[in-house]
């Protein structure tokens, strides 16, 4: 033992300056610091991906991954042949686009407005107020909306009929589902979404504003020519990440809103996995649907990244 170490030690010392291993050894404390993160991704993100195998099996819990029969792409075929596949894909994509178009800019606008507030107490007060909904669960948000929108003595419908309009059956209509979905997201997440933008704005060099003021730029001009360009890369990165989450529309949220009257527009992949897969104990099929969903997400994020790079931005990788 001792001999062995004695022999290798000098060889190691010789290589030290050149080889990659030697370099790693030199910066070992730094590498040690990324180790927990690395392990986290390995253990909780990469290793479980092995479970994706069951998407190609007829997985039975009592036979395990090794014992279950291989069925190739049968589950994917079933998904694509489901008469409701295109309806679900369409719903998922429409909600995603609405989410992107109507929700994504809201935190930016809100952050810009907050950034312009000079009174610091008022600013913090408003910030706290708009953060709070983020900490409420979807159950609460949806229940409050439900109470307000109900046909029987719902506040909004009472108001409508008091003003002489006809009551609107928000909860049971196909037309109102999507606006309701987006508004609830804005309600819950807009405040929380401002945090990163505000941090980015805080990092902008104040000299730029001073220079602009000297040149006679007003508030709006300053926002347009200094604040927005300065946080542009942050916006782009968040946008790409958002696109990567394309199909993560929030199972809990949609599931709470989903009912027999709006299924046509509200059924998305996540709820489909639940009713068609998990509820009937079909782990393989559920996995296949989830797999497909992730693939679409991956393609979209790659596309968005490429576009960002073409536009001269950094992208996420």
């Amino acid at each position, binding site marked *: 033992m001792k001999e062995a170490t004695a022999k290798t030690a000098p060889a190691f010392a010789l290589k030290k300056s050149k080889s990659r291993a030697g370099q790693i050894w030199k910066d070992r404390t730094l590498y040690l610091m990324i180790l927990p993160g690395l392990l986290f991704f390995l253990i909780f993100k990469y290793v479980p991906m092995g479970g994706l195998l069951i998407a190609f099996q007829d997985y*039975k*819990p*009592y*036979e*395990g991954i090794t*014992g279950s029969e291989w069925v190739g792409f049968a589950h994917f075929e079933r998904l694509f042949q489901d*008469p409701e596949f295109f309806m679900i894909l369409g719903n998922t994509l429409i909600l995603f686009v609405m989410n992107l178009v109507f929700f994504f800019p809201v935190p930016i606008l809100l952050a810009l407005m907050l950034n312009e507030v000079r009174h610091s107490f008022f600013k913090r007060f408003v910030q706290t107020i708009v953060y709070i909904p983020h900490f409420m669960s979807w159950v609460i948000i949806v229940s409050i909306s*439900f109470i307000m929108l*109900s*046909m*029987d003595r719902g506040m909004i419908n009472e108001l409508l009929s008091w003003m002489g309009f006809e009551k609107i*059956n928000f*909860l*049971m209509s196909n037309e109102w589902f999507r606006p309701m979905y987006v508004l609830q997201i804005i309600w819950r997440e807009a405040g929380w979404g401002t945090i990163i933008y505000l941090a980015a704005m805080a990092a902008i060099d104040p000299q730029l504003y001073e220079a602009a003021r000297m040149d006679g730029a007003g508030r709006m001009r300053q926002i347009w020519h200094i604040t927005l360009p300065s946080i542009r890369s942050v916006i782009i990165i968040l946008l790409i990440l958002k696109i990567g989450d394309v199909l993560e529309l929030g199972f809990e949220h949609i599931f709470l809103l989903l*009912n*027999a*009257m709006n*299924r046509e527009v509200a059924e998305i992949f996540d709820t489909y996995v639940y*009713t*068609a897969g998990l*509820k*009937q*104990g*079909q782990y393989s*099929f559920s996995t296949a649907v989830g797999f497909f969903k992730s693939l679409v997400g991956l393609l979209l994020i790659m596309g968005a990244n490429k576009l960002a790079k073409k536009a001269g931005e950094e992208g996420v990788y």
Partner: protein
Amino acid sequence: MTNKKRFALLVPIIAMLLLAAACSSPETGTAPRTKLKGETVPISIIANLHTPTVPSDRIEKIMEEATGTQLNIQWVPDGSYEERVNAAVATETLPQAVFLKNSASLMQFRGAIRDGQFWEIGPLLDEFPNLARLSDEVLRNTSVDGRIYSLYQERPLSRQGIIYRADWAERLGLSAPSSLDKLYEMLERFTNGDPDGNGRKDTIGLADRSDLVYGAFKTIASYFGVPNGWEEEGGKLKPEFMFPEYVAAMNFVRKLHQEGLVNEDFPVMGKADQQELFIQGKAGVYIGSLSDVVSLHAKLTKNNPDAKLDMHNRVTGPEGERVWSTPGYGAVVLFPKSAIPDDKRLMEVLAFFDKLMEPELANMLNWGIPGEHYELIDGKVVQSPDYERLNKESRPYLSMQVGGPGSIPGFLEAGSTLPVRLKSEKLVKDNESILVHDPTAALDSATFNDIGERLQDIITDATYHYMIGMMTEKEFGAEVERWKKEGGDRIIREFNEALSKQRKAL
């Protein structure tokens, strides 16, 4: 004399020797079921834990003593129970008795059962005095391909009925809703007849929710003569929604909705909001589980001390009095072959469960130890108010129960001074004489297992759309056709094949 004395001494010695022999080599016993006194049989069980902590072993010790066994109970929290059982199956480490939570879990195990991984116990049950009392009907509901593999925990067959405001009915001079016409009249008068006497039209008849099964619809449908899920017609099983009675039942609710006799939002309403309508005195009729009367009564009388509730279960419709029935079981116990090597051990395990069905043990599993967890007052159980202690010592053992009041003579009932509770229990029992069973409870259809739930959504959605007037009868028919085309035809065929197979097996 001395000889006799010597002989008397010899008997226990011989007995002890025999016992030692029996203990040292349990496999060589010749008479499997004549167990010698003092021998303990090891039994391992996996059971579902509904309370936060594993119970103290007091009741377990009593069970061991009473049954001559040595128990090894694996308690698994409810939330991860199914995963744990699946993991145990995959690693072949199942204990000798495996409780499955409900009929849905049993359905998932059908594959493994067919695979021959569990003992068939049907033909053995008659050898045990208590197990023999389990209901054939319910056992059949748990069967797989007509064979019985499991013991079951009893559940009431039908809790369905009508709960209504007796004080309102009295004010308007209405009698119990014993027919569909009377039910309609009650709903109409409760809406338009100012039943609360405040001079304003601010009440509705029925409070319903977004649940076609446990809400009002399925119960109203069975009053109309709609089958319970499926029914044979001309020798062929057909789903309920292909019967004209189903449309009649939908028309009834549609009419209620049109005339404002039911809450307008019912297709999207949750249970809490539905009950709130009733509790706040806005609605006067609640159709569903009669057991809900206890909490409804408590909350309603808190709001309005003058409110009175009554219940009714027998509603005469075109096909007489009837009500749909559940399969009648909750959890089931299976016996894996991997843990029970031979018939002899199987008989020992079954003998243990047979003993659990003796009244003293059954009552202990259900209520705890007399004098500690409950008191007997007039022959009825009054539970100790110390909930924490019950949770720690006795309530977890509920999930080890086999059978129930219907199969265990001497099973103690809960005492109650609350008249509505007594009445609801009486009506639940009374329902047993007018039950309509689901003939497919024990039948298997691969397509149904795969996409049945998904297809059912088509019918559920169509039913709601029809009832709130957003769909015509023709459009509803088209949805039924869609159900058939997208897999329903296969389900019908497979259920019919399974039925004929079951008939041959029985």
